[in-house]
C-alpha cells in the first residue's frame, strides 16, 4: 500500500518528461488530463488508506530515517493532497480549451505537471531539505508559467515574483542550515525530537523568524504580499487558479503549519498564535479593502486571495479545535471557489478578450454556464448560506467568539460583508446591465471548459456536506488532530517505523 506514495511524485514527473519528449499537442492534452485524473483518484484513495492504516511512513531507498529521506502520510497531508489534485484536475481540463490561445502548448503541460509534482512532493515529504528542493521546483515552474504569455507585464510580474520569492527561499535555506547545525539531522521527526528536549532558545526563535519570513513570502501574508496582485493576474487563467487556489497554500500555509506546529513545536505557544491572528486579520482587511477599488477582474480576485488567506490564518491562529477545523475547512473551500472564480475570469477573458469589468456587460444571455457558476462561486466566497464558504466562515467566527476574541469575529464579519459588496460589483458589471455593442459575436465556451467549471461549482454547492460526521471524521478531523498534537509528531512518526 505504502508504495503508492512515491508515485505521487514520480508519475507527474515522468509524464512531464514524456510530454516534453514527444511534442505532439493532442498527445499532451490527453496525457496531461489522464495524469491529473489518475492523481486525483489516487489522492481520494489516500483518505481510505489513512482510515485503515493510520499515519504512514515510506522509506525512500530503504534507508531508515534519519539516514535517508522519508515520506509521511498523515491527516494534514491527505487534506492538502486531495485539494491540490482536485484543483489540478479541474485546471488541466480547463486548459485544453483555454491554452489554444497560446503557442507551445505541450511545454505548458510539462511545466504544469512539474509544478504539480513540486506541490505533491512538498506536501508528502518528511525531510527539511527535501521540502526546500520541492519548494524551488514548484517555484521555478510557477515563475516560468507566470511569464508564459511573454508580454511585457507578464515578464515584469514574473521578475518581481521571482526576486521576492527567491529571497524567501534564501531565508528558508538559511533556516534549514542553522537547524542542521543545531540538531545535526534533517529529518523532521528527528529534529522535533531533539528540539523538544532542548527547549526554546534564541537560536530556535531566530530560525522561526527566518521560516516565517520565507514561507510568509510564499503565502503572501500581508507584509510580504506585493508580488501576488501582479503575478496572479498575469498568468494564464488555469495557472492563476492553481497559483491562487493551491500554490500559496501548499508552499506557504502548509509549510508554515508543518514547520511551526510539528517541527519547531511552537504550535500551542500563545505568543506565536497571537502573531498568527494579527497577521491573519491584517491580511484579511488589507486584502479586501484593496480589492474593492479594482476594475481588472483578475486583479480583484488576486486581492481577495490575500484576504481569504487571512481567514485561514486567523482560524488556525485561534489554536482551539474548532478554530483549526474552521481554518482548514476554509483552506479547502477557498481553493475550490477561488479556482472556480479564476476559471470564470479566464472564460470571460477567452470570450470577450478583456479583463476590464467596465468593458463587459450583459453577458448573462450569451454565457449562461459561466454566469451560473460564477454566481455560485461569488456567493460562496462572500459567505451566503447554502454554499461551502458560509459554513467555514461560520465556524471561524463561532470559534473566535468561543475563544473569547469577539474583536476578531467582528473583523471577520466586516471582511465578509466587504467581500460580498465587491462580488456584487463583478456580477453587476459582467453579466447584467445593457449589453455592449462589441459583445454580439460572443459564444459560450468550449465544452471541456464548461465541464471544469460545472465540476467545481457542484463541489461548491455541496461542500458544506463535508461537515457531516461521516466525511468530517475521515477527512477534516485527522488534519485537525495533526495540528493539535503537533508536539507529538516525532513520537507518531517514530512509532510508524517500528
Amino acid at each position, binding site marked *: 500500500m505504502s508504495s503508492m506514495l512515491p508515485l505521487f511524485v514520480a508519475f507527474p514527473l515522468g509524464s512531464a518528461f514524456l510530454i516534453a519528449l514527444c511534442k505532439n499537442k493532442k498527445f499532451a492534452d490527453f496525457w496531461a488530463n489522464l495524469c491529473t485524473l489518475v492523481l486525483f483518484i489516487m489522492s481520494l484513495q489516500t483518505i481510505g488508506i489513512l482510515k485503515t492504516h493510520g499515519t504512514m511512513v515510506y522509506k525512500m531507498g530503504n534507508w531508515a530515517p534519519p539516514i535517508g529521506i522519508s515520506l509521511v502520510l498523515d491527516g494534514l497531508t491527505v487534506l492538502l493532497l486531495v485539494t491540490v489534485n482536485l484543483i489540478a484536475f479541474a485546471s488541466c481540463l480547463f486548459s485544453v480549451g483555454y491554452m489554444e490561445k497560446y503557442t507551445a502548448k505541450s511545454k505548458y503541460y510539462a511545466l504544469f505537471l512539474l509544478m504539480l509534482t513540486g506541490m505533491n512532493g512538498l506536501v508528502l515529504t518528511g525531510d527539511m531539505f527535501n521540502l526546500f528542493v520541492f519548494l524551488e521546483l514548484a517555484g521555478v515552474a510557477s515563475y516560468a508559467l507566470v*511569464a508564459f504569455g511573454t508580454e*511585457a507585464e507578464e*515578464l515584469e510580474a514574473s*521578475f518581481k515574483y521571482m*526576486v521576492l520569492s527567491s529571497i524567501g527561499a534564501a531565508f528558508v535555506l538559511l533556516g534549514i542550515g542553522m537547524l542542521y547545525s543545531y540538531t545535526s539531522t534533517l529529518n523532521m521527526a528527528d529534529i522535533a525530537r531533539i528540539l523538544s528536549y532542548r527547549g526554546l532558545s534564541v537560536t530556535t526563535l531566530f530560525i522561526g523568524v527566518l521560516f516565517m519570513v520565507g514561507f510568509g513570502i510564499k503565502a503572501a501574508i500581508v507584509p510580504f504580499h506585493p508580488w501576488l496582485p501582479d503575478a496572479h493576474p498575469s498568468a494564464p487563467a488555469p495557472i492563476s487558479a492553481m497559483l491562487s487556489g493551491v500554490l500559496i497554500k501548499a508552499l506557504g500555509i502548509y509549510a508554515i503549519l508543518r514547520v511551526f506546529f510539528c517541527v519547531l513545536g511552537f504550535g500551542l505557544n500563545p505568543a506565536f498564535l497571537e502573531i498568527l491572528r494579527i497577521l491573519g486579520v491584517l491580511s484579511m482587511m488589507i486584502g479586501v479593502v484593496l480589492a474593492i477599488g479594482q476594475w481588472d477582474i483578475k486583479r480583484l480576485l488576486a486581492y481577495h486571495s490575500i484576504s481569504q488567506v487571512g481567514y485561514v490564518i486567523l482560524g488556525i491562529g485561534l489554536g482551539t479545535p474548532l478554530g483549526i477545523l474552521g481554518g482548514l475547512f476554509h483552506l479547502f473551500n477557498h481553493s475550490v471557489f477561488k479556482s472556480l472564480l479564476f476559471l470564470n475570469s479566464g472564460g470571460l477573458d477567452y470570450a470577450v478578450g478583456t479583463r476590464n469589468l467596465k468593458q463587459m456587460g450583459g453577458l448573462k444571455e450569451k454565457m449562461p454556464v459561466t454566469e451560473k457558476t460564477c454566481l455560485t462561486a461569488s456567493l460562496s466566497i462572500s459567505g451566503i448560506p447554502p454554499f461551502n464558504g458560509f459554513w467555514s466562515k461560520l465556524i471561524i467566527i463561532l470559534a473566535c467568539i468561543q475563544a473569547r476574541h469577539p474583536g476578531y469575529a467582528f473583523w471577520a464579519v466586516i471582511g465578509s460583508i466587504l467581500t460580498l459588496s465587491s462580488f456584487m460589483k463583478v456580477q453587476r458589471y459582467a453579466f447584467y446591465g445593457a449589453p455592449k455593442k462589441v459583445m454580439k459575436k460572443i459564444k459560450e465556451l468550449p465544452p471541456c471548459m464548461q465541464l471544469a467549471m460545472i465540476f467545481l461549482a457542484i463541489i461548491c454547492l455541496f461542500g458544506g456536506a463535508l461537515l457531516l460526521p461521516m466525511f468530517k471524521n475521515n477527512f477534516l478531523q485527522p488534519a485537525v488532530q495533526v495540528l493539535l498534537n503537533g508536539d507529538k509528531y516525532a513520537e507518531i512518526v517514530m512509532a510508524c517505523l517500528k
Partner: protein
Amino acid sequence: MIYLLCMILFCIGLYCIIIKRNLIKIIIGMSIIDYSLFLFLVLIGYRMEGRAPIYSQTQQVKNLVDPIPQALVLTAIVIGLAVLALMISIAIRLYEKYGTFDINEIRKLRG
C-alpha cells in the same frame, strides 16, 4: 565569529536587491546571497584539521568533514544556477521590450 562574515556577505546581497534599481544588479545581488548561503552551509560542516570525505586506497583517513552539507550545497548550486538562468532570460526579454534595465522605467504595474 566566522559565521558573521558570512552573514555580512548575505546582507550585502540583500542590500543590493533592496536598493539598486537595475535588473542586472538585482540578479547579481541574488547570486551573492546564494554564495553566502553555500559558504555558510559548508562552514557548519567543517571540522578542525579535517579531511575531505573521500576514502583513499593507500592511507587510513580519519577526522573527515561532514559530508551532508556538501551534498546539500551541491544541490543548492544547481538550483541557484537554474534560477539564475531563468532570471537572465527574463531580464533579456524585458530589455527587449523596454530597452532598459532600469526598474523605475519598467514599472508599469502598481501594487
